[in-house]
Structures are given as structure tokens and as C-alpha cells.
């Protein structure tokens, strides 16, 4: 009989080299079902590289990835998406010159068959986009709006709405708050809460440690391509988490 829930994702001994640079030096990382994991570390710690591997953007030089207990390998982001791993990148993921509905379904467009030919089901794309955005409370965005005409907050909201529409099991949020106004941050916060309510696992990458601390159930700390800490929320204070990131080694206040 199982006593613990099987991890949704388990990455073992992940190494990644870019030319002469060893970006990851054998990192173990796991995400459990219904869990929000805060992935933190200073610049160059390897957070985005690790999540790049999990989202299929990079292939690891070494290491193993298991999804729901089964070993998997991703040759492209499409493979990760097939398993329900969606990524909300900080500064990319939407095509600025293309409209919302085409962006929503980019890479997974519904088609209508006319004999041997396949044509985009544009009506369905618009209808579903409208419905998906309304369902998560994103108002004021029409499916035919061009992405470049939208604000940063609206764009992030579309990316999260898209992840929800495709019924993601795991959403990787890479600095979703960067360059957003206060009101837009509130909207994104409510969308992340919506993800939590829907029991979607989340990996949250951010330099804003206070937000990560409020949001996450567990914190994984990377430094220079190595995992230096893995704490549940009650096991580390905000101050010690910040100090650990700053020092590059575990700092636990003895008074606690």
C-alpha cells in the first residue's frame, strides 16, 4: 500500500552543459500533485534552465525525468504539452503580430476536414477562446485582438488562461509578475489562486521572494547549478530563505 502520493514530476541528477558552461550540475527536483513549488535562486542559479528542460525547450546532457512514475523524454515543448506541462514564460510565449485566438491554439489548432484537406476551424477557435477567457474571469479581450495591442498583464492572463484551457497538470510560471502594474499583479494573483483551486501543480520561479514565500508550499533553492536546499513552508522563515539565496548556502536561524 502506498503511504505517500506519487510525485507528479521527478527529475533525477539533471545536468546541462551549454558549450563550456555547466549550467546544471546534477540537480534533483520533484513536484507533487496539488503542490505549489517556489523555485528560487540568484541570477545564473539554473532555475530557468531546469524548467526549460522540464518544458521541453532544452534536452538535458544527463539525467532522468519521470512523469507520474513513468520515465519520459522531451524532444520538443510539444512533448511536454502532451503530458499537460504548460509554461508561462516571462517575456515570450505569445506572438505579438497574431491575434488572441490564433495564439491560444498555436501548435494545437483545431481543424475541419474537407476530404484529404484540413483547414483551421476558425469559428471554433474564436468561440473557445472567448469561452476560456470568460471562464477564468479575463474580461475586455476579444479573440480577434492583436497581442501587441494588449498590456503586459493581459498577455500574462492569456497565457495562464491558455494553460487552464488545455487542462494542464503542471504550470510553470517563470517571473509572471515582471513589469506589471499593481492592478495587473492582483489579477495574475487571482489566476494563480484559481490554478490552486483547480488542484493544478505549479512551479513558481521569481526573484520576488516575498511573493514566492506567500504563494508556495515548498521552496527549492538553486545556486550556481546545484540544489542547495529543499524546505517545506514551515521549515524556513522568509528571512532565512532570503539569506540562503544571498549566501549561496543554507542559513537557518538558531533561535527558530
Amino acid at each position: 500500500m502506498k503511504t505517500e502520493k506519487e510525485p507528479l514530476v521527478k527529475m533525477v541528477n539533471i545536468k546541462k552543459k551549454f558549450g563550456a558552461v555547466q549550467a546544471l550540475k546534477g540537480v534533483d527536483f520533484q513536484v507533487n500533485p496539488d503542490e505549489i513549488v517556489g523555485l528560487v535562486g540568484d541570477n545564473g542559479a539554473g532555475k530557468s534552465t531546469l524548467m526549460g528542460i522540464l518544458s521541453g525547450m532544452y534536452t538535458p546532457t544527463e539525467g532522468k525525468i519521470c512523469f507520474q512514475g513513468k520515465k519520459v523524454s522531451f524532444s520538443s515543448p510539444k512533448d511536454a504539452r502532451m503530458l499537460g506541462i504548460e509554461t508561462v514564460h516571462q517575456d515570450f510565449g505569445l506572438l505579438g503580430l497574431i491575434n488572441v485566438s490564433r495564439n491560444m491554439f498555436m501548435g494545437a489548432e483545431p481543424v475541419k476536414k474537407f476530404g484529404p484537406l484540413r483547414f483551421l476551424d476558425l469559428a471554433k477557435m474564436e468561440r473557445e477562446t472567448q469561452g476560456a477567457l470568460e471562464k477564468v474571469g479575463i474580461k475586455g479581450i476579444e479573440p480577434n485582438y492583436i497581442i501587441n495591442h494588449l498590456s503586459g498583464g493581459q498577455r500574462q492572463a492569456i497565457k495562464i488562461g491558455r494553460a487552464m484551457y488545455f487542462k494542464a497538470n503542471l504550470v510553470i510560471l517563470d517571473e509572471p509578475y515582471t513589469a506589471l502594474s499593481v492592478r495587473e499583479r492582483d489579477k495574475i494573483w487571482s489566476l494563480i489562486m484559481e490554478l490552486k483551486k483547480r488542484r493544478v501543480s505549479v512551479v513558481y520561479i521569481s526573484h520576488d521572494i516575498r511573493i514566492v514565500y506567500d504563494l508556495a508550499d515548498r521552496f527549492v533553492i538553486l545556486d550556481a547549478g546545484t540544489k542547495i536546499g529543499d524546505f517545506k513552508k514551515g521549515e524556513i522563515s522568509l528571512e532565512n530563505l532570503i539569506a540562503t539565496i544571498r549566501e549561496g548556502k543554507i542559513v537557518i536561524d538558531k533561535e527558530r
Partner: protein
Amino acid sequence: MSEGNGHASFFSKLVWKLCGSLEFGAAGGVILFAILFSVFTKGLWLSPLNLRVIMRSAAQLGIIATGQALVIITGRIDLSVGSIFGICGVSFVAMTSVIGVPLAFILSLLFGVGIGFINGFLTEKMGVPSLITTLGNLYIFRGLIYFVTQGFSNALPKAARDSTLVCLLGGSWAGGWNNLVIWFMLITTAMAIFLSFTRYGNWVFAVGNDERSALSRGVSPPKVRMLAFIICGLLAGFAGISTVCDMQIGGTTLGKEMELESIASSVLGGTALTGGIGSVLGAAIGAVLLSMIRSGLIMMGAPPYWFVTFVGVVLIGAVLANTKVRERFQSLIERKYK
């Protein structure tokens, strides 16, 4: 709202949309120059014979331009299309007497596809910039054209001229309109539908717009661009073969400078050299515009070399119209209808 107002709103919306479209510059240019040349030549320019001549040369260029626009939208460029046009045309002429028309047609077309594949492979798999890859192939295959023709213009053999396929590709139909014009229209329509209403079309714009974002959604930029180069090679080859079927002769100059004219047609039609924005319909209209200008200037008695200068002026003017005027209209549309 009254019905009258409803119609007015529909038509004004339509006019505003058309003015803000990518093809606005080229379409406006066609109308403007049609009026100017008709006035300056006292209506002679509008004669059916001249219109047929214009459309015949527009068709040759236009078929290439649709392929060029496709490649440019993906964020690459193909400078070898003129040489592909030429080599496919002259090898078709050379092969017909040996292996017959149908096989010569297939092999020549495959030659175009193959060069497109080489362009794509060197650019996308080997990382050589498309400007260099296709410039190299421009020279390589222009040299091969000289080798195949031995510096002469070679006529299509008599037996080949009478074949059904040659008549279908290069013959003419009622009213003296060349079949090439029909091919041009069919190909433009098919390409426009292909780009607007298929998954691949969606990916073409995505890859040209932002490679990393496209990749993050599972779209493979190298695969999309490889296919664009192959289609471009196929279309250039088809245009070259059809042109020799029409003219019944192929020589060393076949397709020369068409690479730049095809780029000019695409840009005139609203395609941005930065990628992500463009229209094959616009490129086709751009080809018609260039062909009109060539004929109009000749009819007005201008020396042929003025064509090149004039194209430069029109190109800059149309690009300004496309960017500035379209931006203006689009911002007005947003304010009016959002």
C-alpha cells in the same frame, strides 16, 4: 439604428478595413498607375493586347513572388529563385527531346524542389544565413544555366511544342489570354488559402514573428522554414517551365534579376523583410504593378533602363504608403470600432 445607417456602417467599416490592409499600397499603386498610363498613352495602354502582355509577364513574376513572400514571412529570404526559374526552364527544354515531355517536366520540377531543399537544409540545419546560401545558389545555378545552354537560346523541339502538357502550361485560351495567367491566379488563390486557413500557414507567421515563442508552443521553426524554401523552389521551377512552354525557347538570361523583382513584388505587396507580416495576394498584386510599370514606361517612350530607376522610386513610395498610411488607418479603426 435604421437600416440605412446599418449599411453605411458596414460599408464604411469595409472601406476602413481595406485601407488598413497589407495589400493597400500595391492595390492603390495599380489603380493609380492604370489611370496615369491610360491618360498619358491616350487609352492605348488599356488595349486588350497590352493588358494580355502585362498579365503574361506579371504571371511569370507573380508565381515566383508568392513563393518569395512565403519565405520572407518566415523571416528568411531566397535570392536563388531567378536561377531556379532559369535552370528548371532550360533543363526542361534540354530534356524533352531525350526523355519526353512528362518526365522532363517532373524531373525539372524536382530540380526546383531539390534546390529549395538545399537552401533550406544549409540555412536551417547548417546555420548558414539564408542570404549567403541562396546567393551562393544564385551563382551556382546561373553558371549551370550557361553550361546547359552553352551560351545559346534553345528552342523547344517541335514534337514537344505540340504535346498536351506544354499546351496546358504555356498555351492560350479564348481571347488570347495565356494559360500562365490562369496558373498564376490559381496558385495565388491556393497559396492565400494555404497561408490563412491551414495550420502550416499559422506556423509560418508565428515563426517569422517570434521564433522562440513559436518553439515554446511546439512549432518547429527549422521544419516550417525548410518547407517554405521547398515550396518556393517548386513554384520558381514551375514558373520557369511554364514560361519556356509559353515562349517555346529558353536561354541564358531566363529568370535573370527575377530574384530582386520577386522581393520587390513581395515588399510592394506589404510583406515585411523582418518576417511575420505579409500577404501572398499582396505579392501577386505587386508583381502586376511592376509589370504594369514596365509596359507603361515603354509605351510612354521612356528608355528601358528607366524601369529599374522607376521601380526603386515606386518601391520606396509603396513601402511608405504601406507602413505609414496603414498604421494611421489601423489606429483609426481601433479607435472607431473597438
